[in-house]
């Protein structure tokens, strides 16, 4: 029987690896997710035969699975495509929380002096799982705008975090070397939860995807650690796969933003003041704004239009309206492409998902490297709800928080139409010089309404 279970776990592990492999290529991605889900079912079913169930155990498992499945499936089905990032944060957080609780239950069962080989992974799992849980909840709150998305910093923050980390280390050693008693490991868990919150607070909303990816890798490692405690190969292999691939993914994501991971995680410290100072002199500059008719005519008589979609487009659910505008322009013989910044939307690839939802043909979506040289030949760069990804200060203002981030060269287009709700700065909270560019026409309003007006204006032109 044990052998059968081990074989089932092996099959599950292969499913996870194949699933991941497929997930990283556009063709097989959906299949990959399915294969991984099959692996999950195999691992779960294989676990059951060897367990000795108490009545209470059967009941709580049934209740837990029913509630969890309901929350998970309803949450995942109902969530709007724009809110995907925070949903991923939420699902990641609960996984971390589960890993921490499993470790707590194990430590309770081992008595006061467990063997190091089981106590150490338990402690690791409690700490990392709790950090992941609390951090993910803060990330969720920031993205859901339950709290401010701007970095929260206060004097002495690093010292406080340092003390927290030291206290966690202290309690960890106490559990391992002195006595594994509930007081020690519950304290450990609470401190780790506080650290998770403190860790994510100073990180800006725009950087949340990277943080979520990192916490995703954390949860993976916590799960792997639980596998060592429970002597369960399925947990070790799956958890480690996620830990390793998640770490690499985190790096790839911060690379796409042109920043180091350290800069993303700790960049807020000491930088906030420097960044806000130069903004003061920019008050009172004037911008040009245009009417729908002006802009409609401009678009209708262009040769090449590049649409730069951003999160504002997603929030306004304007992806269908954007496609409609592209369609009427194409009917008039205007060449339309979409320039997709790697972090357009709120996560790498998020914008592609949103536009795919609106059935925008894949060939029209161009990635940054591919499209950046084309801006200088474009008659109009139509910026819809994007801001930071076209902000020239990423190129020329070393003090700016986004300095060094690769941006779309929208400023090189012959005309720039900047569609925005208001003059409010973008997610990173910084002013955008492009709005004051003499080539720029501002068009204020909700992205969906504005695009619909433009469609009518182009038809009339």
């Amino acid at each position, binding site marked *: 029987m044990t052998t059968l279970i081990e074989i089932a776990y092996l099959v599950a592990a292969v499913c996870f690896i194949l699933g991941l*492999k497929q997930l990283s290529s556009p063709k097989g*991605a959906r299949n990959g997710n399915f294969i991984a889900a099959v692996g999950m079912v195999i691992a779960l079913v294989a676990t059951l035969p060897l367990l000795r169930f108490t009545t209470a155990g059967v009941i709580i*498992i049934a209740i*837990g699975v029913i509630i*969890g499945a309901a929350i998970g499936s309803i949450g*995942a089905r109902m969530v709007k495509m724009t809110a995907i990032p925070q949903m991923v944060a939420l699902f990641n957080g609960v996984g971390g929380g589960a890993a921490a609780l499993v470790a707590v239950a194990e430590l309770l069962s081992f008595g006061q002096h467990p063997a190091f080989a089981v106590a150490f992974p338990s402690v690791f799992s409690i700490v990392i799982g709790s950090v992941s849980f609390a951090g993910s909840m803060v990330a969720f709150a920031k993205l859901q705008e339950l709290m401010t998305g701007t970095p929260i910093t206060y004097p002495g923050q690093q010292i406080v975090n340092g003390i927290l980390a030291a206290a966690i280390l202290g309690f960890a050693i106490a559990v391992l070397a002195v006595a594994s008693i509930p007081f020690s490991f519950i304290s450990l868990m609470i401190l780790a939860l506080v650290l998770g919150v403190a860790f994510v607070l100073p990180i800006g909303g725009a950087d949340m995807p990277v943080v*979520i990816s990192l916490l995703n890798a954390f949860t993976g490692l916590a799960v792997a650690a639980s596998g060592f405690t429970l002597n369960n190969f399925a947990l070790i292999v*799956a958890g480690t*796969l996620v830990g390793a691939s998640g770490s690499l993914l985190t790096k790839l994501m911060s690379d796409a933003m042109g920043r180091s991971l350290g800069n993303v995680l700790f960049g807020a410290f000491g930088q906030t003041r420097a960044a806000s100072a130069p903004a003061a002199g920019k008050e009172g500059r004037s911008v040009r704004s245009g009417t729908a008719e002006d802009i409609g005519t401009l678009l209708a008589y262009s040769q090449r239009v590049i649409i730069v979609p951003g999160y504002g487009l997603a929030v306004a659910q304007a992806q269908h309206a954007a496609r409609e505008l592209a369609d009427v322009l194409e009917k008039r013989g205007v060449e339309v492409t979409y320039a997709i910044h790697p972090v357009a939307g709120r996560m790498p690839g998020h914008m592609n998902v949103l536009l795919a939802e609106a059935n925008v043909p894949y060939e029209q979506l161009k990635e940054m490297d591919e499209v950046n040289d084309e801006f200088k030949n474009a008659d109009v760069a139509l910026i819809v709800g994007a801001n930071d990804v076209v902000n020239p200060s990423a190129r020329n203002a070393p003090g700016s928080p986004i300095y060094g981030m690769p941006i779309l060269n929208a400023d090189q287009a012959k005309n720039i139409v900047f569609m925005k709700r208001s003059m409010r700065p973008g997610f990173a909270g910084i002013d955008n010089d492009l709005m004051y560019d003499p080539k720029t026409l501002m068009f204020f309003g909700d992205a969906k309404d504005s695009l619909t007006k433009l469609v009518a204006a182009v038809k009339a032109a």
Partner: protein
Amino acid sequence: MSNELLNELTFFVLSIFVGIEVISKVPTILHTPLMSGTNAIHGIILVGAIVIAAGASSPVNIVLGLVAVTLATTNVVGGFVVTDRMLEMFKGRNAGRAQGAQNQVQGQPAPTKESTPTK
């Protein structure tokens, strides 16, 4: 070091390499679905949650088991479903808008006027 621990460490180390190798060439557009997919996979902690919940008899263990199973199930089910929803959007994109009509079968509440089946 026990034989079992050594085996576990071997699996651990090899899994690190596999994990890195297997996603090393992922294009930017798939970063979000991949993150979400790996997120679902660490929902395997449900196996651990079931192991600790199965034998629960004391009130503390019952509460711990119940919460752990609930959280882990949310992770697994939510993770896979949300990833699938995301990837569903990519379907047929190589064929461009010709596929538009087919996508409507999935019951998305916000179909575009253009893509409703031709009348």
